[in-house]
């Protein structure tokens, strides 16, 4: 079953899904495992010619990431706490964007509570609307909007002085 449709979906969502999974899973390989499992599960649930529901796709990856986190927490609790200094950052290298600021944004995000962080990641980098973010998280739309707003305000304060200007 090599449906070319999933390739287009993969190209569009894989990086975003990976970033989302990395909010729970520190290392890239584990995050990729979660993306793989969630993507395959959702895609298999689609009827022929149908495309997956985007919030459902993110919710599936979230569920897989949490499952992996739980199973791995039994073995190695420390692994998920440290992302800073990881050999693979969250962002694509871009000559137009200051690497210092990209790293600062990642570090600031890591300091936010997970509820705020996942709302921000879904809204900013996954490009989901607030109703879609709410469906992904199974929360009220106003709740996720408030979390996002509070998270962004906190993020701005957490960024170092030199990194607060627009990218």
């Amino acid at each position, binding site marked *: 079953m090599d449906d070319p449709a999933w390739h287009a979906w993969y190209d569009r969502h894989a990086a975003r899904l990976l970033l989302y999974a990395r909010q729970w899973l520190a290392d890239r390989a584990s995050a990729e495992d979660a993306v793989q499992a969630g993507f395959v599960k959702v895609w298999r649930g689609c009827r022929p010619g149908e495309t997956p529901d985007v919030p459902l796709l993110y919710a599936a990856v979230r569920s897989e990431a949490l499952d992996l986190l739980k199973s791995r927490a039994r073995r190695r609790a420390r692994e998920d706490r440290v992302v800073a200094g990881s050999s693979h950052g969250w962002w694509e290298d*871009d000559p137009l964007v200051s690497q210092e600021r990209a790293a600062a944004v990642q570090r600031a995000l890591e300091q936010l509570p997970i509820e705020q962080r996942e709302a921000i990641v879904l809204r900013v980098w996954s490009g989901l609307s607030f109703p879609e973010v709410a469906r992904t998280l199974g929360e009220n739309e106003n709740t996720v909007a408030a979390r996002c707003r509070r998270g962004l305000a906190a993020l701005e304060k957490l960024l170092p002085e030199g990194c607060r200007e627009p990218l």
Partner: protein
Amino acid sequence: MNRFENDDAREEQGAEAAEGMILDLARLRPAVPSQTLRERIAADLAAPLSREATSSARSPTPAPRSFAWLAERMLWAAGGAIAAAVPFLLQPRPLPAETNRPAAAVDQGQVAPRGAEAPDPSSGAPPVIAAEPQAIAAQPQVIAGQEPIAEESLAWSDDGVQFIDGQIPARVIRHWVLERFPGADGNGLVRPREDVFVVPVALR
């Protein structure tokens, strides 16, 4: 401008600032996954639906579950169930109260007469049983010599080895019975009875 208008204006400013920050942050592009992820997803989607586990870069994919896999586990489960049942099967079953009468006592004719009096178990000294127990006086409602029409076994008790007249060791077993007699006025009467079985034993 009242307080509510102030709040609204502040909220609008906050929302605008948040939207500006979202646009700014969105310029950071998430890192793309490794090339192998696409291959792994393609392999999973190409695999049969029954396959539960996905391939992984970290851990090898477990082999699909086969009949042998299931049979092996069923065998282990059956073994475990048998092992758990063995103690219950080996445990001696308690006989029903009606059949718990010690056969030796009956065969040896050592059954004490009905109404044999039991010694006081609360006394510190070993209980001494009279060789010829006295009969308990019959209830006034029951005609002397009348046989009960029914008996209901209530309980058995093993009092262990005791000394008859302080000399002869014997094992004492008690049996409590509820006797039913036909009443003179047509109503049935009931009377408790205690049977004491004294079985001589030899102490070595």
